[in-house]
């Protein structure tokens, strides 16, 4: 008889794998991407492709250079590239996703030890850097011109986003229906709430994410903006659907390595993101506050985990 393998128990493992989880995230993000390409044409498609390609190539290059096993097949770089591209305006020049993804992978992910060790969401941190470096390119929005979809996006008009309009910028507030379906200005990924929610439902069904962070996040933002936004319920609803809240709450704040692991911690993370987003949107200098809220809460995640450790089974309070 050949050699028997001797390993420690358990001897059977679940079918789950890292690449399957990442594939689920990619699948969940697809509807929003397809919708964006339909809306903005090949320009959006090019941005997405460049974002993903740059992320994957950067990861492969770094791992080759540092003589580590190349792990691009775990698809985590694909997810980062997709999310980075989804955070860019459709009018972004070609080099923006290339540089953005490279920053996300090299600076935010691998400098800190690679997969699972980044303390911030790589795509969001990279977006913040891009925004500081190229503010004009990062905030030029175009309104989709659905009537001239065949002639691509050349006709699309520059405009403020609905959230900026709500905050006092010039422009006509789109109808709520357009905001929900996605017929509005915004980044590539955030425009269609319907498409994003479809993907989110899939992620919840596949148990890739739990409801805690997104539910706490969206509810907190909605309640605060409704109470403090000045126009009541209408403001609240616009704030949910018109900006990056849904993309952020379901796909970015839930990033495993930069969010808390405990249930209590996840709720705190969601509530914290919600408060920060409402405050930035209503009182801050920017019309949008999702990215910075998540990044700030990312930094707090280890601390949150530390103080929300679940009580161990049968643990009794220590009497000194």
């Amino acid at each position: 008889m050949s050699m028997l393998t001797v390993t420690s128990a358990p001897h059977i493992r679940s079918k789950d794998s890292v690449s399957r989880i990442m594939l689920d995230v990619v699948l969940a993000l697809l509807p929003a991407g397809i919708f964006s390409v339909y809306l903005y044409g090949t320009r959006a498609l090019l941005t997405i492709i460049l974002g993903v390609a740059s992320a994957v190539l950067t990861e492969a290059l770094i791992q080759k250079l540092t003589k580590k096993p190349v792990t691009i097949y775990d698809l985590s770089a694909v997810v980062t590239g997709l999310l980075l591209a989804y955070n860019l305006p459709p009018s972004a020049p070609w080099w923006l996703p290339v540089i953005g993804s490279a920053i996300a992978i090299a600076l935010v992910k691998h400098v800190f030890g690679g997969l699972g060790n980044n303390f911030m969401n790589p795509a969001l941190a990279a977006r913040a850097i891009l925004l500081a470096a190229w503010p004009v390119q990062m905030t030029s929005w175009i309104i989709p011109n659905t009537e001239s979809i065949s002639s691509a996006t050349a006709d699309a008009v520059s405009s403020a986003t609905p959230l900026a309009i709500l905050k006092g910028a010039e422009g006509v507030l789109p109808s709520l229906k357009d905001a929900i379906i996605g017929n509005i200005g915004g980044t590539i990924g955030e425009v269609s709430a319907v498409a994003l929610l479809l993907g989110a439902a899939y992620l919840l069904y596949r148990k890739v994410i739990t409801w805690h962070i997104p539910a706490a996040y969206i509810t907190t933002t909605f309640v605060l903006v409704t109470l403090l936004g000045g126009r009541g319920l209408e403001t609240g609803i616009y704030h949910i659907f018109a900006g990056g809240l849904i993309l952020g709450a379901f796909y970015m704040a839930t990033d495993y390595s930069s969010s808390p692991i405990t249930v209590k911690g996840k709720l705190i993370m969601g509530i914290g993101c919600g408060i920060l987003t409402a405050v930035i949107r209503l009182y801050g200098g920017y019309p949008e506050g999702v990215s910075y809220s998540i990044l700030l809460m990312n930094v707090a995640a280890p601390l949150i985990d530390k103080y929300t450790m679940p009580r161990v089974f049968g643990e009794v309070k220590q009497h000194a």
Partner: protein
Amino acid sequence: MAKGLFTFSGGVHPPHRKHYTEDIKVEPCRVPDIVVIPMQQHIGAPCEPLVKPGDSVKVGQKIGEPKGFVSAPVHSSVSGVVKSIEMYNSPGGGKVLSVIIQNDGSDTRVEPDIPLNIDLLSPAQLKKIVLEAGIVGMGGAAFPTHVKLSPPADKKIDTVILNGAECEPYLTSDYRLMVESPEQIISGLKIIMKILGVSSGIIGIEDNKPKALQSVKAAAAGEQNIKVVSLRTKYPQGAEKQLIYALTKRMVPSGGLPMDIGVVVNNVGTAAAIHKAVDLGEPLYQRIVTVSGSAVKEPKNLLVRIGTTFRDVIDFCGGLVEEPAKVISGGPMMGIAQHTLDVPVVKGTSGILVLTKKEAELPEPSACIRCGRCVEVCPINLMPLQLSNAALKGILEEAEALHAMDCIECGSCSFICPAKRPLVHSIKMVKKEITARRKRSASS
């Protein structure tokens, strides 16, 4: 059948894989020409051999004398002549002093010493019988049963629980016992209750075993003090603390024992062994073993004499259909992988699994992605990923602060981990180091 409402938090749902053997009746395994009987088959002190090479022995004759209270005597499972006494492979790993006996084939038994009127026996007399019969926990841990039945005077026991969960995949030995001989279990439970002076007995069975529930319920009909309860099927439902919690909502305190909350838990197989010891005068020299896995020709449930080697048991099951990649003593979640088939069945051997390469997948671990699934499934509410990190870095203080010693080693974390990290393995290692350090500081 209604879903079992009784359960615990956390846990996983591994594939059951019980179909190989669940409908196969228990049959006696061929008694081999040579048996290897280890002098330590239990948790605690080893036994000292009572025989020398050349001595003849009978079936049921005591051949190992326990050295210490936490120990259990060992009996011969065949009649014949002691060939040698030597160090031999043990399914628990390593080598153990073992008595090797050449079977004469006559199966001559020691005349059983059956008391005339069992009802007149005192709890102390009954406990003596349990001790002398060498009974240990048959669920796999093999903790000497008479110790469990001797709680200190200040621990008031009010409930006896029998564990019929059998939550490990593949294993069906308890299941077959419950289906085929429920009266043995009930009889054993009543003896345990008498020994402990307890008037409440609960038998917990997972709800994926409706036939067992039905059969044990029927056997317990008319017993006012015995309840048969359906448990929700989930691993590790059979873990002592989780079982007690599911059935009584009492929590064994961290670092404590079931007796701290008035409960004693025994496996259904142990109850049956107690019945046999008291009512039939039969010491523990054979047990039911599930032989399963895709690499074995005819998976079976067998009544195996202690000391029969895995090789002989597998031969009796028609041998191998494929080169096995892994042979496991016990279930796939907590069982121990063997490096050879020349290893004897002992009192705690609930199953022999012979897995093919496909079944015994050996995934390569990758980086932790902090998905938190291990935290979700840990039945003790530990943070396995952080514990494992502390363990791998060798920081014992941190591992202790993260409650490493509370880990019940069920393996749910490793099972669920999408990055296939050796979570429970690293925690087991750090537990050993912590125990060793505690011993060192206690002795210095």
